[in-house]
């Protein structure tokens, strides 16, 4: 594994500020993550835990009400937060690309597939219409669209959902980006198509050596697809590290609860395990750990102070007062970062 990460987020915070400035929603709060080339990072969490905002922050395509209030985003050695909008525009699509939540609606109904797949190439590389068209055809072949010659001339309404999905994938990789962010790309697909698509993403990733950030709430997909995992809760990364380690021994009670709530065929339990309570209001976070009110193991300290990130030597982190023993063999090397 190369030492310099492709993308490194340090203490990144994005807040939504209401028009009067009276309400501040901490959608992404003090997030530090890193991803290396060729790796897949899964980001899981409940709805509203800040996953999508994090993705939009990385691409810097936030809605006007959002502010990136602090942190650094190092991408290929450059801080993306220092870049002007024009410079960011050159990064988007070319060096990092994104697949949106609803790929079914991601295609403009008025243009042919070839036109749209080639758009990015024409925008970034100044390619001619004909070159872009040829590239589009190759890309359709790459995402396994049958008879690309015909398909490239067709309109989005002539495609099935799975095909449109793959076309959106083709647009994503059209300029051979280093990083691809997929924001719940499979939620609108049925299971067989989902499996096909995930396999395709994996293959593309291996073929192009790209880093993949996979945002989902499906832990099954994470187990299959990802090398690294970050669990988000109330805008914070409560636990991160290699997928297999986290699945075997979760260090944060929230991760543990999430893993326990996956229904299994072998279970003889009659009821599904749920996590009691509601996620907190992001504009009025409790003073201590934001998961404490729902945590079965919470004690006094949890309600008074938010736990700092505990980092183990092998790269696992957890934001829990009880994390140190769970992080295992390297517990003695635990370092405390400055508290928030």
């Amino acid at each position, binding site marked *: 594994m190369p030492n310099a990460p492709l993308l490194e987020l340090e203490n990144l915070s994005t807040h939504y500020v209401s028009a009067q400035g009276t309400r501040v929603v901490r959608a992404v709060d003090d997030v530090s993550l890193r991803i290396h080339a060729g790796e897949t990072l899964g980001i899981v969490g409940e709805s509203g835990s800040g996953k999508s905002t994090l993705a939009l922050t990385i691409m810097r*395509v936030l809605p006007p009400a959002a502010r990136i209030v602090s942190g650094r985003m190092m991408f290929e050695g450059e801080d993306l937060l220092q870049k002007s909008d024009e410079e960011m525009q050159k990064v988007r699509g070319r060096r990092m*690309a994104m697949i949106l939540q609803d790929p079914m609606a991601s295609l403009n109904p008025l243009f042919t597939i070839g036109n749209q797949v080639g758009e990015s190439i024409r925008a970034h590389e100044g390619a001619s219409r004909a070159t872009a068209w040829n590239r589009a055809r190759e890309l359709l072949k790459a995402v396994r669209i049958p008879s690309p010659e015909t398909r490239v001339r067709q309109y989005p309404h002539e495609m099935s959902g799975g095909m449109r999905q793959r076309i959106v994938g083709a647009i994503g990789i059209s300029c051979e980006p280093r990083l691809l962010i997929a924001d719940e790309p499979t939620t609108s697909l049925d299971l067989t198509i989902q499996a096909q698509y995930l396999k395709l993403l994996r293959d593309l990733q291996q073929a192009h050596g790209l880093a993949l950030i996979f945002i989902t709430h499906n832990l099954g997909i994470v187990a299959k697809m990802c090398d690294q995992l970050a669990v988000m809760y109330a805008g914070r990364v409560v636990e991160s590290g290699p997928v297999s380690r986290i699945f075997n021994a979760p260090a944060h009670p929230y991760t543990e609860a999430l893993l326990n709530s996956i229904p299994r065929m072998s279970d003889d339990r009659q009821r599904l395990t749920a996590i009691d309570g509601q996620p907190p209001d992001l504009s009025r976070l409790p003073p201590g750990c934001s998961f404490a009110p729902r945590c079965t193991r919470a004690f006094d300290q949890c309600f008074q102070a938010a736990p700092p990130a505990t980092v183990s030597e092998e790269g696992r982190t957890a934001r829990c007062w009880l994390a140190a023993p769970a992080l295992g063999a390297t517990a003695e090397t635990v370092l405390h970062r400055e508290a928030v």
Partner: protein
Amino acid sequence: MSTSAEILTLPSRPSRFAFIRGLRLSGFPLIPTVILVGIAFVAVFANQLAPHNPEVGSLAARFKPPFWETGGSMKYLLGTDQLGRDVLSRLIFGARVSMVVGITAVLFAGIVGTTLGIISGYLGGWVDQLIMRLTDTWLALPALTFAIFLAAIAGPSMWNIVIILGITYWTRYARVIRGEVLSLKEREFVRLAIVAGCSKWTIMRRHILPNVINSAVVLGTLMLGVVIITEATLSFLGVGVPPPQPAWGLMLSDGKQSLMVGRWWLTIFPGCCIMLMVLSANILGDWLRVKLDPQLRQL
């Protein structure tokens, strides 16, 4: 998924003009379309169709009635006016004035209004505020009075009228188009274009504009009637198309004194022409609006 099976199930490509078949479905306003096409035809071939010069009359033949009245002749089918000019010829050339003024003014207003509407809606922020406050101010002015005011400043000429009507009516486009853009810019394909690194201008040109053209066309058809009426009104009031040129509104104005003494043909014929053209444009515009609006079509 086998490739051969896929090819077999591919539907044959529908023709580029398949939408015309779709449009024909119900209630196509045939008569208004025929009237508009007829007026357009007359306007284009006015030189060939008109029996006389519309701007030169013979004073010996003043106030001739239409041919079926006593004193009328087949030489002047619809009679002559106070200067002995053939009414039919003037109506034919008047169609040209109405068509040219109507279509170019609608295009002018449409291009200005659509551009500003897209910019306002897509960019938002202070640009949006500026353009929309300007539109509000504009809409608060009484359109006709404003047009008369402008016409009085600019002086009478056909092309001045086109520009004046464009300046008066662009706000309607700006409003409607901005509303469309506001919902359009939240659509997923616009977001995809943003994350694919397209510039704002590319997105407006490639993703927003083609999707609002429908609305602009419908609005344009509906505006055609308004613009023609306004042109006729301005000409009637003497600040429109200058006198030797044959405009329908001008003919109405010229004929109004002799209406009381029974020379009805000087006002009835141009009045009917204006009414037919405006009515046709409105009916066609209404039909197009229903046809091109998917929400109304589903009902």
